[in-house]
């Protein structure tokens, strides 16, 4: 008898997945591929890297599925894994949080074009180029200029819709720090949008 996984809640899906049901894994992947990828893509701002990191996040999640604590939401858990991976990647690669219009020290138009994050890379398909341009809007540019911690809290709160408590759990920081990060991040965004 085939089970309709779409109507099953996350916690039960995790239980079924831990029993080795491939359909449960596929359903979890289907539910979270978009939000997880979206978060990572806005953090690293490179589609190929984002897909690699998202894939790694899912594989780590699936491998550790029997260690999942049902006390917390599955979404918090997978976002925590994705966030840790992304932060590790950004720190290893030392990706600068530069403007979509170029690095801060880029004065000439040529330097700005060279350092701009929306510049089409040699290995990027035309389709990817068009999609990267989606991140070139004013608000996306302003988010891209935020420091990593601020960017994560804004994305988790206002795009993924997590509560402050969930964000604290995902980022493993105190609730007060989440509020402070959000407050500062939004203040920076407001300032940058006013300047634009």
């Amino acid at each position, binding site marked *: 008898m085939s089970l309709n996984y779409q109507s099953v809640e996350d916690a039960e899906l995790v239980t079924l*997945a831990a029993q*080795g*049901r*491939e*359909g449960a*894994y*596929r359903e979890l*992947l*289907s539910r979270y*591929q*978009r*939000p997880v*990828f*979206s978060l990572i*893509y*806005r953090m690293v701002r490179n*589609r190929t890297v*984002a*897909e690699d990191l*998202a*894939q790694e996040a*899912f*594989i780590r999640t*699936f*491998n550790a599925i029997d260690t999942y604590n049902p006390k917390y939401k599955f979404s918090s858990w997978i976002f925590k894994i994705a966030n840790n991976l992304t932060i590790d990647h950004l720190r290893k690669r030392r990706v600068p949080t530069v403007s979509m219009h170029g690095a801060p020290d880029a004065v000439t138009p040529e330097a700005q074009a060279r350092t701009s994050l929306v510049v089409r890379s040699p290995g990027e398909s035309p389709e990817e180029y068009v*999609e990267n341009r*989606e991140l070139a809007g004013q*608000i*996306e540019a302003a988010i891209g200029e935020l420091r990593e911690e601020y960017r994560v809290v*804004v994305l988790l*709160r*206002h*795009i993924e819709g997590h509560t*402050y408590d969930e964000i604290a759990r995902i980022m493993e920081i105190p609730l007060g720090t989440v*509020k402070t990060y*959000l*407050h500062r991040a*939004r*203040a920076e*965004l*407001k300032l940058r*949008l006013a300047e634009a």
Partner: protein
Amino acid sequence: MNSDRSSYGGHLDDDAIQGLLDAAEGHVGAETESARRHLADCPGCRARADAWQEVFGELGRLRRFAPPGRFAERVLSGIDLPGEAASPSRAWSWGRLRRWLSRTAADAHLSGRRLQELADGALSRKRATLAKAHLATCVDCEDRLAGWRRLIATLETLPSLAPAAGFAERVMARWQEMAEETVSPGQAARRWRLWPRSPRGWVLAGTLTSMPAAAFGAVAAFLSTVPQLTTAGLVTYLWWQARDALSAFGSTLLAAVVQSGAAFRAYSLADYLIASPAVAVAAAAGFTTLMLGSIWILHRNIDFPRFALRHVHS
């Protein structure tokens, strides 16, 4: 400055000089005219009057401070108007409460953080009520709140970005590929031993398990063709053969032990230990320690492989 009249003899004292200076502003005293005449004739008193004049000038130039904003309204809100108070004590407490409420909720502008949390729906009910009470009367805070609401609304309109088509399939394929790569040899052996995984495996396993039965059946069929051989005779023959083999093995083992001298050495050691209980206890303790140490080392070094990646079956 000294205000003692006697110390100056017939000269003007400090009060008289200050009186003269006040008189210039319209405060005329009884001794003013005589004092003025003395001042005109006495250089010493004139010098002291000049010093006082300088003090008066400094005091006159002091800046006037303005009261804080809405000071007048606060004063008025604290006044108990006639007819409003039923009793003096009740009116006094109500006035204080009203002033306290007006200070905490209505007058203080909301901080940026408070406004953000209100716009984000993250403020507690109590704080939200207080904030709204202030917003009802403060256009400035209302404008700032609208700004935060616009920012949050803009953020929430950002789309969720999708990975390239086929992403889920690639993840599943990669995951299963990794699972195949990392299955431990022990797990593979256990799976093979427990259960054949293919039709060919089933055929092989069936053949192997049926061979002893087939061989036994063949021998039984052959023996049944010999007319002199009965079942009881066969059992007796097999029993004799087994007993002779066991007896020969025992004799050989006993002869080997006696010839090697091991039995003699073991007997000597046991005799020595029985004669010296302290040595026996020390030997037992040493042996136990050695065993426990060995078990601990084994426990720390034997890898219990965890099934890092599992095969999935729908």
